[in-house]
């Protein structure tokens, strides 16, 4: 059930809020965890479509960009799209809106590898690996690009959130069985 997924997303991000804020603080304004949680709580409680509820409640670039990931996973849950289809569509729209590409140290560095995986488990593994790879990258988009050293040495908070959303999603998703 999608509502259980939403509950678990909220629960996971409640435990991650401070850590995500800290990851974000290294290169930005330190609110990424709070923003994700605000959006996910709206997904859990609002009668609106999950993506729209997230976008309106979270605000900021994260609200618009992550709403596409939320919408993609929601549509997979509802059987409207396959995971690779849904994630690829989300990734291309995020690329267009955010003007970012692979290697820019953004959420896309977790999302793009995940979109090429054929199973949910592989997608989670790919997202995790992509997320860790952001540690060595220098930011070319987002606030991190303006920081001394462009964030090299820090894992990107947005990429981390992509991996976490997927990992919780995996628990609720039964592979075609």
């Amino acid at each position: 059930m999608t509502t259980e997924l939403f509950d678990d997303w909220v629960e996971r991000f409640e435990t991650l809020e401070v850590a995500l804020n800290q990851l974000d603080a290294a290169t930005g304004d330190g609110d990424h965890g709070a923003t994700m949680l605000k959006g996910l709580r709206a997904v859990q409680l609002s009668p609106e479509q999950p993506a729209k509820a997230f976008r309106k409640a979270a605000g900021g670039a994260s609200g618009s960009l992550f709403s596409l990931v939320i919408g993609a996973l929601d549509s997979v849950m509802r059987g409207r799209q396959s995971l690779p289809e849904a994630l690829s569509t989300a990734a291309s729209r995020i690329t267009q809106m955010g003007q970012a590409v692979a290697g820019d140290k953004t959420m896309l560095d977790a999302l793009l590898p995940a979109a090429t995986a054929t199973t949910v488990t592989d997608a989670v593994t790919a997202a995790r690996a992509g997320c860790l790879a952001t540690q060595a990258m220098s930011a070319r988009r987002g606030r991190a690009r303006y920081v001394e050293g462009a964030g090299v040495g820090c894992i990107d908070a947005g990429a981390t959130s992509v991996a976490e959303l997927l990992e919780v999603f995996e628990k609720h998703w039964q592979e075609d069985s």
Partner: protein
Amino acid sequence: MKKLFNSQQRMVDDMISGFVAAYPDQIVKGSNSRVVRRKTLRTKDNKVAVLIGNGSGHEPIAMGFVGHGLLDANVVGDVFTAPSPDLILEGIEEVTGSAGAVLLISRHEGDVINGNAAAMMAQDDDLDVRPLLMYDDISSAPRGQEHERRGAAGTLFIYKILGAAAEAGVALDDLIVLGEAVRARTRTLGAAVSPGVSPINGELMFSLADDEIYIGMGVHGEPGVSRRTVGPVNELVAFMVDELLADRPIESGTPTLVLVNGSGGTTMMELLTIYGEVQSLLDGQGIPCLSPMIGPFSTTQETAGFSISLFTPTEPMLTWWQAPHAAPLFPTIFGEAAV
């Protein structure tokens, strides 16, 4: 965290309520309480609307600059967070008439993404809304890549000049051209001395050694791009003015508007000292200073720091700059002889 709020959930709404309560003849909440607008809109009388959506936490910018001769509305996001496209669209719908609207966007990732999305949604609804990107911070991208720079305090020149021109009946196309011209003539560089406390998480927004100053501090407390050791302020200011003039040289004899903006935790005593140094450096190069703007206008909580903006207005720009306004928290602009 020692901050004077009722709660994190209410802090932005409480601030808006206080502002509206203070200036009931000028300012009201819109149909969405996060849209702060003029009480009396003139946009039904063929006046182009001028508005901006932005994250809160930087007051008085931009909410305080709503009023006759300046902004028609401000769409107020959460602290340091751009409002959603949906909310910006509500603001656009609230104030836009047949003459259209300029949606100002201070160039930061969330503001750009959500502002452009809102403008597209409004255009789909047959509203003539044009986004105008504002950027002036020379530390955020090198010369030649000005369009990659972020918006800083120097964007205030665009607010005021477009606000006054729109009030006088200038049409949408001409306002966009005017705004781009002001942008092309403005440069800003900032420095941070000590961090503010984020109202979101109670943490210091960056860390900096006791004897260090960051150059190129972002308006959201983003750490800077280079460091200098604390010394007499005249050396710091000389360095910053050199950087500004290297980025956009100003010919001797060109009247120049200086904005010394405080980040929230720097005293007027310090800001006036800084202005004095700027003016004497410009005097030394034969650049006459127009009546300046000095104070905390674009802030980042109690962050100590400042920015210097240099703007060389044309004669019409100076006229708009000096035109009267009724925005509660925008300063009085003193006039002077025309350029």
